[in-house]
């Protein structure tokens, strides 16, 4: 059975893939993660999560172009699938629904 709920780290990685678009590959995602959250993360950890998300069907990937910096090696570009988007937005909706029920913050918007 494949787990379909999203963990916190997974959700952030998924969002970052969406943000980075054409440049969403492991190294870049890890850098972006570090600069956005100011938390250190290893490329291996990100890569591991990406693989898992792909297994769950939230992401697809294909090999992109190569650069000199990479010693002529290609990178693996990740893109969100429709199912991934749906899961992200339902995760967001679920949270908003929860926020709305929270008396202190229930501002209506």
């Amino acid at each position, binding site marked *: 059975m494949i787990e379909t709920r999203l963990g916190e780290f997974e959700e952030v990685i998924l969002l970052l893939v969406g943000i980075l678009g054409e440049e969403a590959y*492991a190294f870049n995602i890890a850098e972006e993660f570090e600069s956005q959250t100011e938390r250190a993360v290893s490329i291996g*950890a990100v*890569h591991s999560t990406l693989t898992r998300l792909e297994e769950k069907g939230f992401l697809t990937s294909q090999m992109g172009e190569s650069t000199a910096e*990479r010693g002529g*090696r*290609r990178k693996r570009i990740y893109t969100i699938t429709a199912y991934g988007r749906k899961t992200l937005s339902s995760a967001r909706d679920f949270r908003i629904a929860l926020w709305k029920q929270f008396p202190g913050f229930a501002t209506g918007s």
Partner: protein
Amino acid sequence: MENKQHTPPNLARRFLLAFLRRDLAEEVQGDLDEKFLSMLRKTTPARAKLQYWYQVLQYLRPFAIRKSTTSSNHYAMFRNYFMIGWRNLAKQKMYSFVKIGGFALGIAACLLIALFIRDELSYDLHYPEGNRIYRVVEVYKDHGETERSVWMQAPFATAVKADFPEIEKAGRYNSGELFGAGSNQIRRDDRMDNAYEEGFVFADQELLEILQVPMVYGNLAHCLDQPNTMVITKSKADKYFPGENPVGQLMVVNDYAKEPFKIGGVIADFPANSHFNFQFIITMKEREFGRGEQSYWGATNYPTYLLLRPGTDVKQLEKKLLRVTEKYLLPLWIEQGRTDAKDLTKSIQYELQPIANVHLRNAGIEDPVPSHGDIRFVWLFGIVAAFILIIACINFINLSTAKSANRAKEVGLRKTVGSFRSNIINQFLIESLLFSLLSFTLGLLLAWLFLPYFNVLASKSLSFPWGEWWLAPVMLGSCVLIGLLAGLYPSFYLSSFKPIQVLKGNISRGSKNAATRSVLVVFQFTTSIILIISTFVIYRQVHYILTKDVGFDKEQVLLIQGTNTLGDKMKTLKDELLQLADVKSVSVSDYLPINGTKRNGNGFWLEGRNKIDKSVSGQFWQVDHDYVKTMGLKLAAGRDFSRDMASDSSAVIINQKMAKELGLTDPIGKRMMNWEAYNIIGVVEDFNFDTFRSNINPLVLKLGNSPNIISVKLNAKDVTTTLASIQTVWKRVVPHQPIRYSFLDDSFSRMYDDVQRMGHIFTTFAVLAIIVACLGLFALSAFMIEQRGKEISIRLVLGASLENIFRLLTVNFVKLVLISIVIAAPVAWYMMDKWLQDFSYKTELSWDVFALGGAMAVVIALITISYQAIRAGLANPAASLRSE
């Protein structure tokens, strides 16, 4: 752009590639390179490299690690190897039994010997300051002969402690029976009945401090520092003061109630692997054996132990100790009027023996420790164990290569379908490991089963170290190691087959390695024959000693011990004993011709020549009128002591050796002296009163009182009833003390316990070695006969007799055994000649021992093979010939 010169660490990169999934290699390496470059821009190259390592290690995650397809294949192959190995094992039950059984025997023998050696090596290692504790050894050089002994003068300890700052503590003990140490009667002062106890000793408070004996009750620093105090061991405290703290209680020794001993402390029992075996330690504080004894430099009775300060140069201190002779001994000798005093000082040196060496490395040092180990035997046993193991390994190798023909097709097929040679080697190594594992399990069980018997054999109290942490890893490690070693040759040999030849069927069926196998068989039998011959020689020596005419009559002499408490009742007892019908004579003397009874060294001269001649050192025994008769000594000249001659109180009887040393051809009526002068009235023939390791020493017998042991010469047909009546007499005369007795001949043979023990141990291992070797020979001959099945059948059909076949099949093996005899004989001769040099009286190393040993080997080998050979000769030839 200078950044370009820096590249990610090569090792990290190689490590990454070693575990990373192949399909991820490109993207991951690319990512990590990018990361590295970006780090280079931000920080130092070193940090960037470190960061690269960190990133590589972070890839050690399940998703990224290669699940190599080959490894799962390996697993399947391993399973296959195990399965094939197991099937082979199950299919050829006899060969498997020989391989595993022989191996297990070898391993069990090794284990037992290893336990024995470990125990021997563990002696005296438990003292907290053990590496600083030394025993003083006096080296006395005289006429090119060197004598080493550990008895020092009474004031030696205090003197050296005062004179040499390197010595932190010095302590002594005195275990001389003369002084009342050894065995005594003891009781609590509030009880009546005496009990016999051994292990009495006089010692300094400081000796206990040096050894730092663990205390059960009392304070180590003050347990012996008062006069007339005594320290007892835990087991004795439990015996006499069960459930109470005995410190401060009083005990009476030898019924002498006027001077009881106060218990100053209770120590833990000395462990079995300590060279001390004291039970009752009486303080030396304010104790003197005769006036001025404690400050007299002319007598040596005290083994002395030193605790050196850390960092002391022992060799240097040994040299400095020479000053002791100059300072204390020289004045004494000059005072005694010794003309050779100056030379004497040169003949004495001191050595410091580390306490850990006392048990095993004590060759040539005389000391009061009842039994020592011998480092040579430890080595010898180790070597024997190794050889038995090697013999077992050889079985394995021989059988594996011999049976190779049967596996050749398998090897050929495996190679044809793609096995590398390394795979085949692996396979056979794994099979060997399988055998080794089974053998180790079995061997461990065997060793555990036989440990009680081995304990009796070696007179040890070893226990199996199941609970110790090292057992499992050591066993497993040796299991793998031995499995690999034994499997190495067969696996390389078997894996070298060429598939095409093998599958065509023209592999020389196991005969190619016949030469190697022969060499190995010769090796096995050489070892076994050496062990057999050694066993024969040891037994012969034991027999020789036990049956040799010792010069006294040791049969039917009952020794009643502990009679020093009797006092006036001694005469009553003696008289009552003499009235019994079967008692021939009764003598009271502590000096008996067996080890462990009283000894008393003295210097003797002819009368008036004590300042001129060198003294003749000899024993000076106090005996009574009936001694010569009771011991069955033969008078060579003169007469025995007589009750009718009052002048016999200053008369002596000497042995022939003493007469010779004094230079007397007709000693009767001559006079000799030590501190007094005596009339020589008789000469007894020399008799052995020490072990046969030493020569007969000069001896002087004099009338005197030494009331510890009563010897009773019996003339009984029924010893049991006589014993019963003696016991009744004893009960009547001495009601408060249980009788304790032994027989002279038993005590005599106990002197050679160690030699007999050696004999038993050797026999055991010789038998083991032979069994293992024969197992191998049995299997090997079975195999040979199997190979030649067709040949034998054809011979039988053509009219060969059983005898022809038998000869055909056995002659080769017998040849090998004969070669082994030729090699083994000189080696065994050399070894046994060395061993016999320990004895002054030794049996001849005659040829018949070797002939007998060799003949035994041949016969055993023949019997082993003949079962197979006769079976082959009796088989129906048609059965074997029909199959093709």
